[in-house]
Every structure is written in C-alpha cells, then in structure tokens.
C-alpha cells in the first residue's frame, strides 16, 4: 500500500465523516429552529388571550361586579383573573424575547453547518452552456418584459388617476383661498371689519386728520399741562442699524404669519426712530439705555469675564438692600435702589472704584399687613431715571422720590399703595423735564385705577395725567418718534396705547395683548412690537390714530412668547426671548421666523444689543452673547457666579450687572 495514497484516502474519508456530521448538525439545528418557531407561535397565539388591553372576560366580570357590588366571590374572581392576565402577559413577553434569541442562535448554527458542508465538498465551476444565446432574441425578450412592467406601472397610475378625480372631497382645493366673509364685509360698509378706502399716498390704512382725536373712539382727555420736548434730539443715525429694507416678501399662505395688509411700503420718511436727547448718548440714564429699548451705543463692550475667578471684573460692591432694579449710569456715577419691607434706600456708587459714595434712606410709613408683594418682584423692582442733575426712583409701594447728586432729597410723593397682583414694577421714563410713570393697577379696568402720569422732575407736581383702560401691568413704556410724531408706547391688557409725551393725549390704541403684561415694547424700522404670553407678538404700524386694532397690526406671531423679557430689534430682525429659554429671531418686516435657539435655562432680564452682539443674562448669572444676524451664532458665554434678575447696563466699555447681592462692573 502506498502510504501517501492511504493518507489521501483516509483524509477523504475524514472529510466525508465531517460532512456527514455537519449535515446532521444542520438537520438538528433546523429542527431546533422549527421547534422554537412553533413554540413562539403557540406563545403568540396563547398570549392574545392574555392581552392586558383586551380582556373581555375580565370586562364582563367587572360589569357584573358593578351590578352586584357586594358579591365577594365575584370580587375575588376578578382579582384572581387580573393577576393571572398580568402574570401571563409579562411571562409570555419574557418567553418570546428568549425565544427570539434562541431562534437567531439556531439559525446561526444551521447556516454555519451548511457553510462547513459546502467547504468540504467543493465543486468545480460549471458554467451554463445555455448562456451563450442569441443576443438579438434575448434583447427582444428583455424589451418585452420591460414593456410589460412599464405597462403595469402606467396602468396603475392611470387607474389612480381615474379613481381619484371622482371624489367630492377634492373640491376644497379648487378654491385655493377660502372666502369666509367676502359677501358680508363687501356688502356692509358700516361693518367695523370693512376696510376704509385706501388713502391717497399709497397707504391703505385709514388715517384721520391729525387732531381729529375726538372722533376716534375712547380718547380720555388728559388733565393738566404739557411737557416741553427735549431740547436737542440725539442723532438717530447710529441706532437702530438701518438697513435698506427691500420690499417685504409677499405673504405665503399657510404660514404662521398674517399677511401684511399693505403691499406697497410706506414712504421712506415713515421711519420709527428713538427719541432721546443727544446728551444721553454717553450715559445710561434710564432702564435699558438711552433709547429705552436695550440698544447700547458703545463700540467695544467686554466680551469675556468670570465673576467667580474675578477675571474681567473691575470691581464688585455689595448692595446692602435687595432690589430687582437695574443700575443707571451718568458719567462716573452709578445709581440703584434697594428696599425691603421696612426700608427703602437709594445708592450712588463711584463708577471707577465701585465705592458707595452715599446711601440715602427714604422715610416711608410702615406698610399695612395686608399689603403683599411677590418674592420675585421685591420691594424695589423699578429702575430709576436721571437727567444728569437729579435721580428719581419709584418703589413697589408707589412712593416716588427725587434726589440731587449729593443725595439730598428734593421731593417725595406717594401715588398710593398700588392695587397690583405682584406690586408695581414698571420702571420710570424721562421725557424732557417729565418723569413718566405708567401706574397701572386694579384688576378691573372699569374702575379706572390705572393712569399714565408725567411729573415735573424739579418739583414732583403732576404735569399731566391720563386714565388708562387697563388693569395692573408691569411693562415699562418706551419713547419713540414715528416720522415727526413723538409717542410714548405703553403696553397693557388688552390695549397698547400711544400717547403724545407733551400732553398725554392719546394718539392710537390697539387691542392685542392679554394676561399679566410685563415685557416692554420694542421698535424697529417702521413698526412697534409688543408681546405677552397668552396673546401674541404683534407688529403695529404706529403711523395712525384712533383704534387701529383692525388696521394697524401688520403681523402677529404666537410661539414661544415672552412673559417677562422684552423683545429687542435691530431694525431688520426682531429677537423674542421666552422665559423658558427659547430665543426666536424674526424678520421685523414680515414676522417670518428666521431661526430659533433654545438655551436650557431661564431668562428674566432683558437683552442688550451692542454693535452686532446681543447680551442676554439668565437667572443664574450666565451672560450669553450671540450675533444679531440671520443665522444663530453664539459669540461667547460668561459667568457671573451669582444669580441675576436685573437687566445689565452697558455704557462706555463697561458692563454693569446687578446680581442678587452685589453690583459688578465688568470691563478692561
């Protein structure tokens, strides 16, 4: 015997043995899989009876039990069945999961065995001789097959086409724009919804002659005298950044934005600009900066700091009494107020060192025990104003006080304890020599408790006062110039009202807010923006008089509305910040959403725009800096290390942030 041959033989023999072994294993694995599959199916079938969501037997037992509530045997049966169903459900779930794994395992063994068998019995390639066929005939057959399938698919489409048009329900699309009140509003010119004829000059908004105020609906006559306009107006070229606004995009149907009712843009002279004296430009004399809408005029604001490490912090001064009011700055002086239940104080700090130059306690009578303010408001929520010589402050209790720069009290008067849900919190404003106080209170507007007042900053005497048809609110007014018309814009529920700052005469009003109104208005290019949670963000055309609810609201937006934080606009874009942390960027002209970004935090203080950067501080003291552009871009983030509720002040190259306990000055 040739040992070599023998070896080959025995090798072949062994391979045959292996082949047989694997074939048997494959059979076993197949049987195993089959068994598992059958058991799984049996389990699935069985578990249908134990579906906890469908238990007809249990349901009928329960109904029976409801008929015989005293039948304890029935009750026990219900409990037993309930337990059985639940147990069976979870048991069969576990069983099925394990079964699936076993099935996969069995299949793997099966496939592996087959693979092994194939490896043992290799075969030579055996090309099919029939492959070499007539190419022309083959191509013809191929074409026929393709045509057959093509016919089938075309037939399907045609069947669908034939079927689909014979249905009444497609009719709704035959009218692309629904015409809800077409007939009504056309035929009835007296209807309040019927639009006025377009006025000459391209504007379709009804524009009664100026001065014809008496004809506009409720325009309460203001009492008292008049204020003088600020002597010299600030140049408005630097704010807001003006951009040549292209024609607003035509409305897209179905968008969340209401179409702009004016197809042609108003003449370019119709611009909304800030209203403040030029002398204010180097200071921060009122809430949210000289413009009152949070636009800082500085060119090189600080961009990074850290309160805990002291990096970038020029100084930090503890403020003795708490207050949610924001610091105001004039020259090298910083003013703020603080108060608790028993005392009210005003502080003057040196802007260079942070030293408290003086602190002035304001004598106030003790509060009645019934008077309560919310913890979040505190006793000094309103920001002060200064005209460069004097500072005025108002407290939650309605006392308004004026001091000179040495801390001497010039006058004090009380507007009475406000009947306000959270306490008076609207900040003061300043127009010429008039301190503007939006003193909204009461829950029922018909009681006429709310008023807008202008007090002479020198004497505290009322220059004019006008009653407001709104309940308590917490929003601070802003001053704007719409074309040549100076206006105070006030927010209340439901009315947004514009007054002439000289005499308090009402210019226009729009009904578009609701709820507890706290955010201040903003303005941009040609519009005024107001918002509150529960209502909407509305863009109002301020070039009008009378009740413009139906004519003056250019667009509205209803998502992620602000309930505390005021919106801010750079003219082209509008930024809406919700307390819950969502920042929405909208196109100011159309209200279209440009972007949205969410920070997982809470915002209560209002944003500041410096150059192209928006500074926004959250309640934990983290200031987020992001670009006021068409794409969200975070430019930086800086921590103060202390909770913050007040809006910062940004003047020169210094940023002042009031934390819970300390005032920080940030800069180089």
């Amino acid at each position: 015997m040739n040992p070599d041959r023998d070896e080959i033989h025995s090798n072949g023999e062994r391979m045959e043995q292996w082949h047989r072994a694997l074939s048997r294993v494959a059979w076993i694995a197949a049987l195993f899989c089959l068994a598992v599959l059958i058991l799984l199916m049996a389990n699935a079938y069985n578990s249908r009876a134990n579906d906890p969501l469908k238990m007809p037997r249990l349901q009928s037992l329960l109904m029976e039990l409801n008929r015989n509530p005293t039948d304890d045997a029935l009750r026990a049966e219900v409990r037993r069945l309930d337990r059985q169903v639940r147990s069976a459900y979870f048991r069969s779930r576990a069983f099925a999961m394990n079964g699936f794994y076993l099935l996969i395992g069995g299949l793997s063994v099966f496939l592996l065995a087959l693979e092994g068998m194939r490896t043992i019995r290799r075969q030579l390639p055996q090309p099919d001789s029939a492959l070499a066929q007539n190419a022309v005939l083959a191509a013809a057959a191929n074409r026929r097959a393709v045509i057959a399938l093509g016919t089938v698919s075309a037939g399907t489409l045609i069947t669908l086409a034939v079927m689909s048009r014979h249905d009444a329900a497609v009719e709704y699309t035959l009218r692309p724009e629904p015409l809800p009140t077409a007939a009504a509003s056309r035929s009835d010119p007296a209807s309040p919804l019927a639009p006025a004829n377009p006025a000459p000059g391209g504007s379709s908004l009804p524009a009664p002659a100026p001065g014809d105020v008496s004809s506009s609906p409720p325009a309460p006559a203001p009492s008292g005298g008049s204020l003088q306009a600020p002597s010299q107006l600030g140049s408005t070229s630097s704010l807001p950044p003006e951009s040549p606004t292209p024609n607003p995009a035509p409305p897209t149907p179905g968008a969340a934005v209401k179409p702009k009712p004016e197809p042609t843009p108003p003449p370019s002279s119709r611009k909304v600009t800030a209203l403040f004296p030029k002398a204010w430009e180097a200071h921060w004399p009122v809430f949210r900066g000289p413009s009152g809408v949070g636009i800082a005029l500085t060119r090189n604001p600080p961009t990074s700091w850290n309160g805990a490490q002291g990096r970038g912090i020029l100084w930090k001064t503890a403020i003795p009494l708490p207050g949610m009011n924001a610091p105001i700055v004039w020259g090298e002086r910083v003013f703020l107020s603080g108060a608790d239940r028993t005392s009210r104080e005003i502080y003057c700090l040196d802007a260079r060192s942070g030293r408290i130059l003086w602190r002035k306690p304001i004598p106030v009578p003790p509060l009645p025990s019934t008077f309560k303010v919310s913890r979040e408001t505190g006793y000094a929520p309103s920001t002060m104003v200064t005209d460069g010589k004097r500072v005025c402050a108002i407290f939650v209790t309605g006392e308004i006080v004026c001091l000179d720069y040495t801390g001497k009290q010039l006058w004090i008067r009380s507007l009475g304890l406000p009947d306000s849900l959270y306490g008076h919190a609207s900040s003061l404003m300043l127009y010429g020599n008039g301190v503007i106080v939006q003193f909204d209170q009461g829950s029922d507007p018909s009681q006429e408790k709310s008023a807008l007042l202008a007090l002479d900053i020198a004497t505290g005497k009322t220059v004019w006062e006008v009653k407001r048809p709104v309940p308590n609110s917490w929003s601070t007014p802003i001053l704007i110039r719409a074309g040549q018309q100076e206006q105070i814009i006030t927010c209340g529920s439901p009315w947004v009202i514009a007054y002439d700052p000289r005499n308090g005469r009402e210019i226009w009003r729009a009904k578009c807010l609701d709820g507890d109104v706290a955010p201040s208005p903003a303005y941009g290019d040609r519009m005024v923006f107001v918002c509150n949670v529960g209502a909407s963000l509305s863009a109002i055309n301020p070039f009008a008089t009378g009740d413009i609810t139906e004519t003056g609201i250019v667009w509205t937006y209803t998502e992620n509305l602000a309930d505390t934080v005021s919106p801010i606009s750079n003219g082209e874009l509008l930024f809406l910040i919700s307390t819950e942390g969502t920042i929405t960027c909208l196109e100011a002209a159309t209200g279209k959403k440009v972007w949205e970004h969410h920070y997982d935090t809470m915002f209560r203080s209002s944003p500041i725009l410096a150059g192209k950067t928006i500074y926004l501080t959250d309640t934990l003291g983290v200031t987020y800096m992001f670009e006021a552009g068409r794409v969200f871009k975070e430019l930086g983030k800086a921590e103060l290390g202390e909770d913050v509720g007040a809006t910062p002040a940004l003047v020169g190259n210094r940023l002042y942030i009031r934390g819970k306990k300390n005032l920080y000055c940030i800069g180089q």
Partner: protein
Amino acid sequence: MPQEEKKSRRDFLAEGVRTGSLILASGVLGALAIRAESGTMVWQIDPDRCISCGRCATECVLTPSAVKCVHAYALCGYCKLCFGLLRDKRTGNTTAAENNRCPTDAIRRTFIEDPYYEMYIDETLCIGCAKCVKGCNAFGNGSMYLQIRHDRCVNCNQCAIANACPSEAISRVPASRPYRMKKTIHR
C-alpha cells in the same frame, strides 16, 4: 493608438464626473446641514395634542412600547380619588384590582398627608396604553401624560406610532431637548 486615446478620454470623463458629483453632493448636503439645530432629531409626543387613543401601546415597533406615562408631580392635584389610578365604575375607592384602571398595575400611590396622595408610575410595568392619561385628563389636572422614553426608543427614521397617531401629536424634536414636558408653572 486610438484605443489608448479612447481609454484616457473615458478616464478623464470619469474623473470629471467624480469631481463634479463630489462638489455638488457636499455642497448640497453642507447647505442642508448648516441650518440651525441640524443635530440628531428624536421623536416625541406633544402632550397638548395627545388624545390618549391608546395606539402608542400597540403601534410601536417595540413590545412593550417605548412610550410610557410620565407623571408631572408639580401639576398633580394629589387627589386621593385619582382618576388616573381608579376606574370610573368602582366598588369602593380602594386600589384593588377591580377598581384599578391600569391594566398592568404600573401605578402605585403613597400617602403623603391628609388628603394628599402621591402617584408613582413604575415604568418597567407601564405599556403606554394611556388609560390613566385619559382618566387624569378627563377629571384631573392632566398631570399624567405620555412621552417617548429615550432609554427605550430606538429612534426609527420613521416612527411607527407617528404614522398611526390620529392627532398628529408625534413629531421630531432636537435630541438636545428630547422631552415635551407639560408646563408646570401655575399662572
């Protein structure tokens, strides 16, 4: 060498196509991805839209469903007579099987102080059937609601429940904000 020339021309063409498609594809995709919040999206239920129809329990690709009941304690009225827990038709106010609404015994209550009880949901037992949600919405504060739990959800490209949802309550949300919790601020 026409053959060679032809070949090199073809290669050149292929090269051109390759470069062109690369530039085009990366340009288009770059433009698509540059939009804000282009991170991972996950599926979530808007509790304000949910009508507790019960499809979440049956339509999810997972069994039991990735949808579970979440309890917003800050919204809860802590009722002793909790309609998320107890059936409308009862024989007494005990939590025994005949009075309990939950088919899998996933809701437990613990006594806090008179008259308040805390409801706790055992997610290992919850199958997302929305029976408690329906009860809590009908008679209670609506503090119980369904959410897709992301420790279970496999984040299908097309959510099977979203397809079946009659109230279009399920949509994609950024993975950085994966829940739509009910607002818990009382106004």
